[in-house]
């Protein structure tokens, strides 16, 4: 099956809610970064491998949540299409928070800045964390420009989720080093 129709060949793309907009629009920048973030989490999943089924399942749930947020970002809030978009709820945010707490309990106390890296899985988690922060900045820029921070609840919840996900990925990076017995390197001035 062909995956291309060529409707984006002239610099515009279609939103899920039907509008045709420029590919440089803040909204497109925001969900483009979501796509990048999701792909890097995919690389983290691949580097963990199927034998680490618990973290893999957890990360794949996060990938699914990111799709839900991307769909939301591709939909204007006043459109009927919004009826078909679930986005993420408080339970998704709590899922991240519980996982952060659970991983943190297994880790030694943090005594300074750590150099991003260590085991390759940890390096992917750090990459995902930094892209997650950029994604968050893009979403804020888009919400600022479009809603003057009076964005609908579904968008606000997405922003909270992405903010929490950065924390999750930081702890996940440390947890990966712990999982693979790789020492963390502290920043030395």
């Amino acid at each position, binding site marked *: 099956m*062909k995956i291309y129709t060529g*409707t984006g060949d002239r610099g515009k793309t279609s939103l*899920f*809610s039907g509008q*045709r907009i420029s590919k440089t629009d803040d909204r497109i920048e925001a969900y483009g970064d979501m796509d990048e973030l999701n792909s890097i989490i995919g690389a983290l999943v691949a580097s963990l491998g199927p034998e680490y089924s618990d973290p893999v399942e957890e990360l794949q749930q996060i990938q699914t949540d990111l799709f839900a947020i991307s769909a939301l970002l591709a939909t204007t809030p006043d459109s*009927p299409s919004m*009826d*078909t978009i679930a986005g993420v709820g408080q339970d998704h945010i709590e899922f991240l928070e519980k996982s952060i707490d659970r991983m943190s309990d297994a880790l030694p106390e943090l005594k300074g800045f750590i150099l991003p890296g260590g085991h390759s899985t940890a390096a992917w988690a750090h990459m995902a964390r930094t892209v997650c922060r950029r994604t968050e900045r893009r979403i804020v820029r888009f919400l600022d420009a479009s809603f003057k921070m009076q964005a609908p609840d579904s968008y606000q919840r997405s922003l909270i989720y992405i903010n929490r996900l950065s924390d999750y990925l930081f702890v996940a990076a440390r947890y990966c080093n712990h999982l693979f017995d790789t020492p963390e390197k502290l920043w030395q001035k």
Partner: protein
Amino acid sequence: MRVPSSVETKAQNYASELKERRWLSNKSFEITLTKPKDFRYIPGQWIRLSHHAVERDYTLVSAPTDPHLALCIRNIEQGTLSAGLSNAPVGSHFNFNGPHGYFTYRPSPRPAVFVATGTGLAPFVSMARSGVTGFLLLHGVNSTEDLYYAAVFKSAAKQYVPCISEADRSSGEYFQGRVSDYLRKILAPGLYDFYLCGRGEMIRDVTFLVDEKFSGSLIFTETFY
């Protein structure tokens, strides 16, 4: 009648049985399948039908309130499943997974323009059978023989315009040309909700035309191959 734009439609596996086959033209037929009790869908959604380990996606042409499921099939010689469906005996068992897809009608104050090529008409048949009315429908076909659903749209559509691009140009009842020609030459500039279903080339051509002539309109698409 207002058609719900959202219901809980999580895709699942279902078993079904062939109830009836009705030939619509030399090449196309509609099959009726039993409807599993807990199966729910929105007009415009599709199912993945499997038979003897072959899978193919088909948009439902029935209305969700109908007691059965219906699919419009174009018999393609190389199409293993369509050939199988064209002669499977009544009572044959099929499995399907669904419902899938987001090509559903979204009521709005703007006029709706439905554009289909060939069997890309399927989602609009389901919508019309479900009570969606007042739309302009452009249907690009090769021959008048492919206009077998005209009766469905007689009362539902504000206007049903078959666009015949190649053969059978004898009758004045039809627009002679492509659907994109109709949009370019006849439809007045303005804001519309366009629903496009059919070949990728049509979707690309109409999308560019909307960007140029109907800028600010909405476009929803489903590509049929």
